[in-house]
């Protein structure tokens, strides 16, 4: 009797609660409800923080292109956040058609969750990275600390801002670029490399959790003498305040390859594979490459690269595959718990 009464009440409350939630869930946004029906008019690109301007422009162009070609009106949605966090969300159930993340390791995580083919990297040209960038230094006007290359960063009088490689995908490129420089300089003597990297991180004043946070610490808060940043981010900061900053190109750096991939299980379920493929292919088209270059990413397309060559000075660039044996290995060697990065801080 008692138990029965409880059940009745519980069932009643459950139905009210669920009904109300579904109502707010669907009624709150009519477009959302539409997408459930027609299935294909919504498209979600889950990306990382610094691509916001890039994809805002790209989606607009591609949307017009797609409409002209097929007559379909697609609503392109963007989600931005830390690269790792975004990969996690997709793995946890955020229904992305495509992911455009900061590094292959994060896309691997989505693949590991069973949402896409394990060899997604081979699906598109250039390691599925339609645009690239590299790691440069942003210093204050006049370069008062006279920072020219990586070895200046281990000087005692230099204060550095760089995000935490453990929480920021982008920051892992910074770390690997520095590693590569010291590796070449010390002829591969790992202990010497570690010593230098350790010195470098001892100079870090603020270890922000994300790349954009680090930029803010450097630009807005006036922390540090040098910001280790992606080239696109550095150019953006300099463009906003040309009189305050200078970009310093180190002698050697890494080729940052932000990865793009189709989330197979989602597009197959929604029936958006064609659209997703067209979307990514468009990134490789001259139009797509032009948009990337305009947003300070180095284009793969030779013609577009030539056009923007003043913006992207040449320097020696190594890839993760060449220097570190791919992302899985790099991650394991350097960034997992107990890896070289943790050793820096180990007591």
């Amino acid at each position: 009797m008692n138990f029965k009464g409880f059940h009745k009440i519980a069932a009643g409350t459950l139905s009210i609660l669920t009904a109300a939630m579904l109502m707010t869930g669907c009624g709150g946004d009519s477009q959302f409800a539409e997408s459930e029906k027609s299935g294909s008019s919504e498209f979600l690109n889950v990306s990382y923080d610094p691509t916001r301007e890039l994809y805002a422009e790209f989606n607009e162009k591609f949307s017009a292109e797609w409409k002209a070609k097929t007559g379909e009106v697609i609503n392109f949605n963007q989600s931005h956040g830390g690269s790792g966090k975004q990969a996690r969300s997709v793995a946890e159930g955020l229904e992305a058609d495509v992911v455009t993340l900061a590094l292959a390791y994060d896309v691997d995580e989505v693949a590991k969750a069973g949402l896409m083919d394990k060899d997604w990297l081979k699906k598109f040209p250039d390691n599925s990275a339609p645009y690239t960038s590299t790691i440069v230094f942003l210093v204050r006007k006049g370069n008062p600390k006279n920072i020219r290359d990586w070895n200046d960063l281990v000087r005692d009088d230099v204060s550095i801002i760089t995000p935490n490689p453990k929480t920021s995908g982008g920051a892992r490129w910074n770390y690997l670029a520095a590693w590569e420089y010291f590796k070449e300089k010390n002829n591969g003597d790992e202990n010497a490399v570690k010593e230098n990297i350790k010195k470098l991180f001892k100079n870090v004043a603020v270890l922000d959790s994300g790349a954009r946070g680090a930029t803010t610490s450097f630009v807005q808060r006036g922390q540090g003498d040098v910001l280790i940043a992606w080239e696109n981010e550095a150019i953006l900061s300099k463009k906003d305040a040309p009189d305050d900053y200078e970009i310093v190109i180190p002698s050697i750096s890494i080729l940052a390859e932000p990865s793009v991939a189709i989330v197979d299980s989602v597009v197959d379920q929604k029936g958006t594979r064609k659209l997703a493929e067209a979307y990514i292919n468009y990134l490789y088209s001259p139009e797509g490459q032009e948009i990337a270059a305009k947003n300070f990413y180095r284009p793969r397309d030779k013609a577009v690269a030539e056009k923007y060559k003043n913006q992207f000075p040449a320097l020696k660039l190594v890839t993760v595959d060449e220097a570190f044996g791919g992302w899985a290995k790099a991650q394991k060697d350097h960034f997992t718990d107990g890896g070289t990065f943790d050793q820096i801080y180990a007591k």
Partner: protein
Amino acid sequence: MKKDKLVRISLIFLAVSFIFIMLVLPLLLVAKEALAKGFAVYANSLTEGIAVKAMILTLEATVAAVLFNTIFGVASAWLLTKYDFKGKTFLASIIDLPFAISPVVAGLFFIMLFGRMSPLYPFLQAEHIKIVFAIPGIILATIFVTLPFITRELVPVMEAQGRDEEEAAASMGADGFTIFRKITLPNIKWALLYGVTLCTARAMGEFGAVSVVSGHIRGKTNTLPLHIEILYNEYNFTAAFAVASVLVIFAIIILIVRNYIEWRSKKKISAV
């Protein structure tokens, strides 16, 4: 006498400076940054489509969370004050527990329960029910972080009120709802409203838990606090602070309403 005055003045000074430095200055800074590029830019960043959508979503989530928590708050406070039963103290501590849980972890709770790794996921998928990375998830996360507020406000008041009136009504044969509506509610309505205002304020500002379950889809699952983060990460500081100032203004309105309510209740009591 003179010493008393000195103590009084220094204490007031201490209290005011503490609040000024810890609270007012940050708020002034928000206002200053929000208006840094003039009022037009300020108004623009608030009326822009995505900001408006975020505002609507925040209000929806807040209303839903407050509604459910009010029902729960009243029921649980009633339970904890009108009856004696085994495990009552334990239940009271459980209700307080969400205070002790990091909002980020609270968000993860729901990901684990309704996300792709959950055994429930195939079922939800088959039924086309979206919970996490959609509005229901945001509401759930908001409810979670504001769960104890109303109960905490009501319990002391209802405890002080005792059970005599309700027991008298029950002995005359009134049913539970009648007793609640006619006897209990008039006694607790101000405390209830106070709890509701606090719950509302907290619900609007929730960031950590919502951030985990939202999916950050612009114009769809971005609440105001998440929108602020995005604007900030776009280096659009003026807009970020402008939107933040809206939350401050909402909060201030809520607090003014609360003070008005308190003032009215006091007036009413003194009139009796």
